[in-house]
């Protein structure tokens, strides 16, 4: 029973991370219409920046604030210099362009930090384990678990109540109409892309103490977040949350009950959902 509960916690905390990354991916898709292949690499960049800042200053909290901002700046450059010329083209070109960005970022990371793995220690406040009736659990994972809902609520409030949030939602519903009523779409696109990559950076910085930081961490997470946003419904915020939780729990319980098949489970789930609900679980279109 305690193993079951522990896997539940594992699944939810993994789901929280996936949610952070996927929500950025889905916002960018919803507003810009671009499926960003480089999103996983930007998440990875967040983890590496966090590692770099921590090893220079020994200040995890500072790194958690600063690293995502640097990632967002990188995102701003990508959007305004590279993506802008190809908005009018076929979707596959945008996919390829962001794939080119992925190649550059992944190898740039190898060039700068080498191919080995790096580790970031959790801050002293969150180091160690707690006893939860029958098993011990890392404090840092619990921290992610509790932080997730706050970030989720914060995002919800941002989209619901702020002017920028409303502009973003408006543009994601109808780009042309949004431009027609005086929203500066160019600025909005850059802003949204930077916001999405900032979220990826937050995810990466938060994941830094949880996972070994290596040059292939982006490759794995991008496929997982593709699955999350597609099963939830591309462009849907609640969908991204639902998808992230499902995928997190599947990973955790799969490792417990079906260790041999756990690698394939997310793909099987993806295929089943795409074939029965082609636009995802929570999409408005049918």
């Amino acid at each position, binding site marked *: 029973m305690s193993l079951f509960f522990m896997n539940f916690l594992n699944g939810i905390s993994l789901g929280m991370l996936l949610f952070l990354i996927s929500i950025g991916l889905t916002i960018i898709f919803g507003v810009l219409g671009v499926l960003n292949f480089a999103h996983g690499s930007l998440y990875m960049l967040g983890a590496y920046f966090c590692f770099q800042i921590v090893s220079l200053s020994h200040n995890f909290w500072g790194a958690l604030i600063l690293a995502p901002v640097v990632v967002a700046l990188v995102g701003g450059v990508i959007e305004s210099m590279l993506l802008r010329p190809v908005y009018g083209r076929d979707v*596959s070109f945008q996919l390829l362009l962001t794939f080119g960005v992925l190649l550059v970022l992944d190898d740039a990371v190898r060039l700068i930090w080498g191919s080995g793995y790096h580790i970031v220690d959790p801050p002293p406040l969150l180091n160690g384990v707690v006893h939860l009736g029958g098993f011990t659990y890392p404090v840092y994972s619990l921290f992610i678990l509790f932080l997730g809902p706050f970030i989720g609520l914060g995002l919800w409030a941002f989209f619901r109540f702020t002017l920028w949030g409303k502009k973003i939602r408006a543009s994601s519903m109808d780009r042309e109409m949004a431009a027609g009523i005086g929203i500066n779409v160019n600025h909005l696109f850059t802003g949204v892309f930077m916001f999405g990559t900032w979220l990826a950076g937050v995810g990466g910085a938060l994941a830094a103490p949880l996972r070994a930081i290596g040059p292939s961490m982006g490759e794995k997470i991008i496929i997982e977040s593709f699955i999350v946003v597609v099963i939830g419904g591309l462009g849907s915020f609640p969908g991204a949350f639902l998808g992230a939780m499902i995928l997190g729990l599947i990973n955790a319980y799969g490792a417990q009950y079906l260790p041999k098949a756990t690698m394939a489970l997310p*793909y099987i789930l993806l295929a089943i959902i795409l074939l029965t609900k082609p636009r995802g679980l929570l999409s408005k279109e049918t």
Partner: protein
Amino acid sequence: MNGSARKKALLAFAALVLLGVLPFVVGTYSIMLITEIMIMGIFALSFNLLFGYTGLLSFGHAAFFGVSGYVTAFLLIHDFPSLLLALLLGTLAAALAAIVVGYFSVRLDEIYFAILTLGFGMMFYTLVHQWRSVTGGSDGLTGLVLPSLGIGKLSIDVSSPKSFYFIVAVFFIITILVLLRIVRSSFGLILMSIRENKERAAFTGINIRAYRLASFVISGFFAGVAGGLFAVFDRMASPSMLHWTASAEPVLMTVLGGAHVFFGPVIGAILFFFIEHVITKFTDIWMIFLGAILIPLVIFFPDGVLGTLMTRRKKMREARREGEE
């Protein structure tokens, strides 16, 4: 024969002569490089039947490449007597896999199609990764025994790079001829009409799904040809053949060369390996340069290198003709 057809025939003849003469004038390393380019050229051409002609972006094509590679490798490490038969069985396995994957995937469009094929591709990847007893897990299948190739009384030793070069060249030429025939047939025209406007094509009574599936299976078949040859070339099959990053390679080559001209993927394969070859002389980290080359290519050459050059030539010729009139 009019001028342009004669020019094309001459060009084809020159290319054939070049293919035949090259292995006698360049070193072993270059022979192997050209062999690999031809194999990946077959892979990219197969992918482009689906992408350039049918309008479906598959991001799981490495599955068929890999399935064929594994079947061929599996047969050859168990002392299978015939190389050609092993390649054929591998290719048929790939086509079979394409029937199953295609049956489900062709219902979807655009990004959803790309993601679903990616998902199926990764299922095959996890299968070969986990099924240790048959596939060797993450080590893959190594130590292929190559039976000599007997055609009539002639027996060819396949293990020398030069003779394998010629075998691959034959497959390369056959693939080109068959795919050319396909895209220039009425079947090919229907595929292109589906690419241009699916709804309108459906209104003329075309069964969209059936045609897409046919294109998918043919494409998977030729990806299988490439995969089997690659396993023989490498003397092994490894899970990385099926990973989604391997599926990205034919996509890159095709876009690099041009998706809307038949030979675009081949030019792309040449460019791809040329870039890799030149850069890996200086550093192992070459993907950063590939990306740095790919990004401006996507921005400034919307039809790929060959495609954009050909459109430009056509425009110039039209401008000249207008000037004459």
